[in-house]
């Protein structure tokens, strides 16, 4: 996996949202949703991006696809900075990068038969004639386990799990190489969730897809990811392989996050690290390390000096001044 070539490199990505206020509206503050994030996605892998609500994980995924305008930084797709692309070059790139959204009830047009929703991208990109497009829609449907006759039905006729499969078919039909999966199973019941996760894994194997899997559920992320990046308040605090993250997390936040997950095993007795307080507002994040007000091992230095994301072991990066003590 590590020898694979990078498909996407994200460098110092920044996204601030201005907050308007005042009698004559002007920018009074900025929400620092993503603040200097760098990581690489290798071809054919699944990179999990986890964090709690408001940590900026969704914004990272959306900005990578230029669904949001970045405030700063670069995203390179096979070496080309996608923020520099315009016109036809940008349009061509959009085919390569697709997204599946969280809410399968809100992301499909209720007045369009799902076959048309799926085929819309093909039409926009002028791919093939009507007949060829229809065949590609049917092929995408069959890849997610739906039938030809489903194409003429409307979204309300489908269950949540089926709708999420339609969302996946809509991404697949463009024959992309990279898909951002933004919390694709968090709105689904567990038995349905398993089905969608299995489909995603099969598709990746059969079509050589690369995924960025954005989620808050660590058990789901562990199941599907090759590597995992953990975000806290607009920053990446730890990146490593799945095995290392779950066996030997080096950042105190990752450790707390893992220990907070309720395990479906009543015989298990664990020493919990229960974090105090809430996640601070990204409007006014803490100085120094953003995690220091909640961190069980924070010292003076943490409130002053922001820790850099350092490589402590091969392929294991951590942003903590004191991560060595967990080695």
């Amino acid at each position, binding site marked *: 996996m590590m020898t694979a070539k990078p498909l996407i490199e994200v460098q110092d990505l920044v996204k601030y949202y201005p907050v308007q206020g005042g009698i004559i509206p002007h920018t009074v503050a900025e929400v620092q949703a993503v603040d200097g994030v760098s990581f690489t996605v290798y071809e054919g892998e699944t990179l999990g991006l986890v964090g*709690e*609500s408001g940590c900026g994980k969704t914004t990272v995924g959306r900005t990578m696809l230029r669904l949001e305008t970045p405030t700063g930084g670069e995203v390179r797709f096979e070496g080309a900075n996608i923020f520099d692309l315009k016109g036809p070059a940008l349009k061509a790139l959009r085919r390569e990068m697709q997204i599946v959204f969280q809410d399968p009830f809100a992301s499909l047009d209720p007045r369009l038969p799902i076959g048309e929703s799926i085929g819309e991208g093909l039409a926009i990109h002028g791919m093939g004639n009507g007949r060829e497009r229809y065949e590609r829609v049917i092929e995408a449907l069959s890849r997610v386990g739906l039938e030809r006759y489903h194409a003429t039905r409307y979204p309300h006729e489908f*269950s949540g*799990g089926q709708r999420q499969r339609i969302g996946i078919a809509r991404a697949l039909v463009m024959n992309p190489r990279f898909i951002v999966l933004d919390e694709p199973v968090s709105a689904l*019941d*567990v*038995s349905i*969730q*398993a*089905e969608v*996760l*299995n489909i995603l*894994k099969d598709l990746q194997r059969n079509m050589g897809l690369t995924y960025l899997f954005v989620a*808050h559920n*660590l*058990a*789901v992320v*562990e*199941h599907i990811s090759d590597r995992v990046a953990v975000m806290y308040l607009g920053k990446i605090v730890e990146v490593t392989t*799945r095995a290392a993250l*779950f066996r030997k997390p080096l950042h105190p936040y990752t450790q*707390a*996050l*893992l*220990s*907070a*997950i*309720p*395990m*479906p*095993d*009543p*015989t*298990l007795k664990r020493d*919990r690290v*229960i*974090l105090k*307080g*809430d*996640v601070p507002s990204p409007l006014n994040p803490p100085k120094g390390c953003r995690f220091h007000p909640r961190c069980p091992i924070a010292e003076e230095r943490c409130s002053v000096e922001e820790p850099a994301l350092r490589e402590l072991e091969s392929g294991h990066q951590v942003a903590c001044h004191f991560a060595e003590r967990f080695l």
Partner: protein
Amino acid sequence: MPAKSAAPNGNAPILEVRDLKTYFFTEDGVVKAVDGVDFYVKHGEVLGLVGESGCGKSVTSLSILRLIDRPGEIVGGEVFFEGENLLDRPLDSMVDIRGDRISMIFQQPKSSLNPVFKVGSQIVEVFQIHDEKMDKAVAWEKAVALLKRVGIPDPESKAHAYPHQLSGGQAQRVMIAMAMALQPELLIADEPTTALDVTIQAQILDLIRELNHETNTAVILITHDLGVIAEMADRVAVMYAGQIVEEVSVEGLFKNGLHPYTQGLIKSIPVLGSVQEQLNTIPGSVPNLIDLPAGCRFASRCPARVEHGLSICEEHMPNLLEVAPGHEVRCWLYEDAAGHTAPLKPGKGKKKK
């Protein structure tokens, strides 16, 4: 009606629900959201009520407090609370039960609080509704003490905050403070942490557990998360399509779950630290609650029915039967009937002679 087991040790349960039926009379037909639910809760215990969306777990809890509105209606059954059938009470006297003796917290704490009143005043209101003579200042002090107890930082000033000034975790703490204000004997927590992040969820679950130990308040914890169940519950009732399909201790559920639905559910969750290539899935979908099958509601999705070649499953509804001490299950694999011999004996998994 299957013989309903009383709580063991001669210890009468605090709540006993028998054959509860709550239907919704809609234009499309009668939705049998809760259709013959039986379970009990013992004093001081945490009963987990688990099931997937639409299985009727929330409607069950609302029915206990008789909070069902039209087109819904409780059409049958009994809800014994401390020996009294709550369904026999005049509806307006339910006020004496709600909040005072049975209280409830919900999934969306922010939408359960009134946005235009200070949180302190909302807790004061709880005291004053149930004790009109209580002095406002005294009630306010008690409210602040409660906020402190549930772990709100700086409770004196936070009592003056409005709900929008609180985080999701804090709002749920305020809800818990209101629910615990009158020291109820039973707390119904309906997905109390589903809307919260995991680190905040851990805090809230911890708080509920502490209060349960401290005040001996019994808890019905409704959730779809088997992890939460494993950590919190003493006993578990599993719901499927408006019915209880299994009721057992939490250890029994995970070690020896008998109902094929329970087994499928447990196998379908990804578990941290154990990587599987493929997750188990439950094929098919939940039956339509308007047009329910005659037999077992899980039959069309049940792998065990096929494996054992049972024909009775699709024709007749199995009963919720006690198959081992404290372990009840609703499944033809374990129940005999005319012309049908149960293929399995729980615990041994051997053919019945």
